[in-house]
């Protein structure tokens, strides 16, 4: 355990040495901090209305102005970060866990199972993400859980395929053959020996996947098919901003900038993490 901690320290050190990586680390750190301590940071109640001070521009009281119901936009942006991570983290980690398991089974199990799982992955990937999301939302109705489910379902194949390829390459390596000849069970080989060698690559993928998920949640909420009002989501802010775009630019700016910042932060972090964890991956994509 001590070894893995020092490895983690090395990775963080490596990321921080790269200027883009450091920037990513700072942005992501800020977003996570704001999300965790959102209710201590916000100057106003993110859902508290105050009709008297509606549609104001930025001022010292309201840093990003107010919306059509007099709610403080800055507070809604901070609280929106919490919603974004509430969707992104469970969805990405859920997809990673399922994809990892299925991918390892596909790579290590019998050929017919591999073919079946690959067909399953290819089928899910054949739906354009937003179209699939719209179909699911149309059928079961919009909610936070629906968004998490859609994102998880559509990103399982990506993790599954990478985990499968990694398993296939590891499968015939000497240390796995040695384990097998000593009579280790399949669960032991996959869980104890393969898993640590695959999880790093998948973690990098996950970091790069988080912005896509945040954008999808915001996108669905923008269409009015994600989280329900008055929940402060960045997408919901953009939805209000879009309908009031001729009255005030601040809602669109307040909803749009955090999405771009979050996307940038996680992408920088992911790219730099990838170079540190596995320089070989750099050539792919």
């Amino acid at each position: 355990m001590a070894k893995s901690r020092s490895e983690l320290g090395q990775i963080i050190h490596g990321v921080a040495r790269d200027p883009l990586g450091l920037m990513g680390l700072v942005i992501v750190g800020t977003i996570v901090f704001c999300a965790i301590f959102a209710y201590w940071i916000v100057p106003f109640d993110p859902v508290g209305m105050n009709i008297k001070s509606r549609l104001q521009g930025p001022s010292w009281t309201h840093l990003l102005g107010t919306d059509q119901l007099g709610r403080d936009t800055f507070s809604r942006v901070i609280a929106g970060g919490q919603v974004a991570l509430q969707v992104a983290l469970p969805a990405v980690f859920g997809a990673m866990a399922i994809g990892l398991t299925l991918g390892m089974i596909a790579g290590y199990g019998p050929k017919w199972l591999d073919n079946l799982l690959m067909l399953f992955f290819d089928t899910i990937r054949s739906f354009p993400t937003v179209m699939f999301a719209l179909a699911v939302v149309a059928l079961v109705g919009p909610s936070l859980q629906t968004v998490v489910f859609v994102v998880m379902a559509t990103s399982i194949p990506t993790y599954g395929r990478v985990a499968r390829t990694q398993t296939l390459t590891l499968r015939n390596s000497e240390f796995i053959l040695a384990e097998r000849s000593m009579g280790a069970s399949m669960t032991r080989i996959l869980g104890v020996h393969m898993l640590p060698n695959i999880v790093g690559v998948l973690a990098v993928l996950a970091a790069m996947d988080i912005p896509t998920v945040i954008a999808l949640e915001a996108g669905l909420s923008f269409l009015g098919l994600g989280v329900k009002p008055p929940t402060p989501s960045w997408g919901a802010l953009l939805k209000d901003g879009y309908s009031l775009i001729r009255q005030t630019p601040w809602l669109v700016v307040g909803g749009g900038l955090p999405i771009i910042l979050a996307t940038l932060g996680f992408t920088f972090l992911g790219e730099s993490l990838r170079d540190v964890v596995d320089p070989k991956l750099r050539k792919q994509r």
Partner: protein
Amino acid sequence: MLLYATRRFGLALLILIVAVTVMFLMIRAVPGDPVQIMLGPRATPELQARLTAELALDQPIWKQLLIFYGNLMQGDLGIDVFSGRSVTEIVFQQLPHTLWLILGSIAWSATLGIALGAYAAAHPNTLIDRVTAAISVSFVAAPAFVVALLSLLIFAVNLQWFPAIGAGEGFWGRLNHLVLPAFAIGLSWVGYIARLVRASMLEVMGESHIRTARAFGLHERRVVMVYALRIAILPVVTVIGVGMGFLLSSAVFAEIVFARPGLGKLVIDSITTRNYPIVMGSVLISTGLFVVSTALADLINAWLDPRARTAN
């Protein structure tokens, strides 16, 4: 090659069949009577009975699936309960708008991306190379609908350079209306394609036929433009084919933001009015489009690079 093509299209067909079945079962898995959901609470019993018979809902599920496939083979996606028109007709009426938008987006972003990538590869580690790299990373990440909203705010509402809504009339009107949505969808692709072309260009520049061309004393510009770029842009073809799903998704948002007609607007409007046959029809058509374009990209790739035929 023929064998590969047959296998690849066979796989595409298999994927489509599974996808359609999944979709069919999804609709049936929703709790509640589909007829009531489709028609809403105010439907008359006669209308409900007619739709039940039309959708063959009184039959066992495997028979329903067979009937569904039979209709699909004839291009019949059902009838829109509200207007009485065929779903296929409605969807195909909107599809060209979306395809033009996608084509416009990819046209400008591929042209600019290839030019930037080629220039950066020909002058590695210069200022423009670094600037391109930085911009690429930043723009790759920008979600299309946020770019769409911000460009709507800046260029249509504030500066009023371009129209804010609709698809326009006549050639110039259409083109004028296409600028902002195509910009929003294409922006993230410019950097992506530039990076892709730069990487593959650097690889190609090191190959022996380039050395030979140089040894024959050809002008450097000719070497880059004719001999290197021709090979280096191949990955772009694949990426666009595989990115079709992504492009379709971005188009949905661009159509909503700029209030353009198209598949995305059709789906969203149909969700609000709970018009399930149209939602499902549109999703099916766009899935089909995506599957075919991925298969085509694979085929083009295999045709140009024989090594891809035996991989995987």
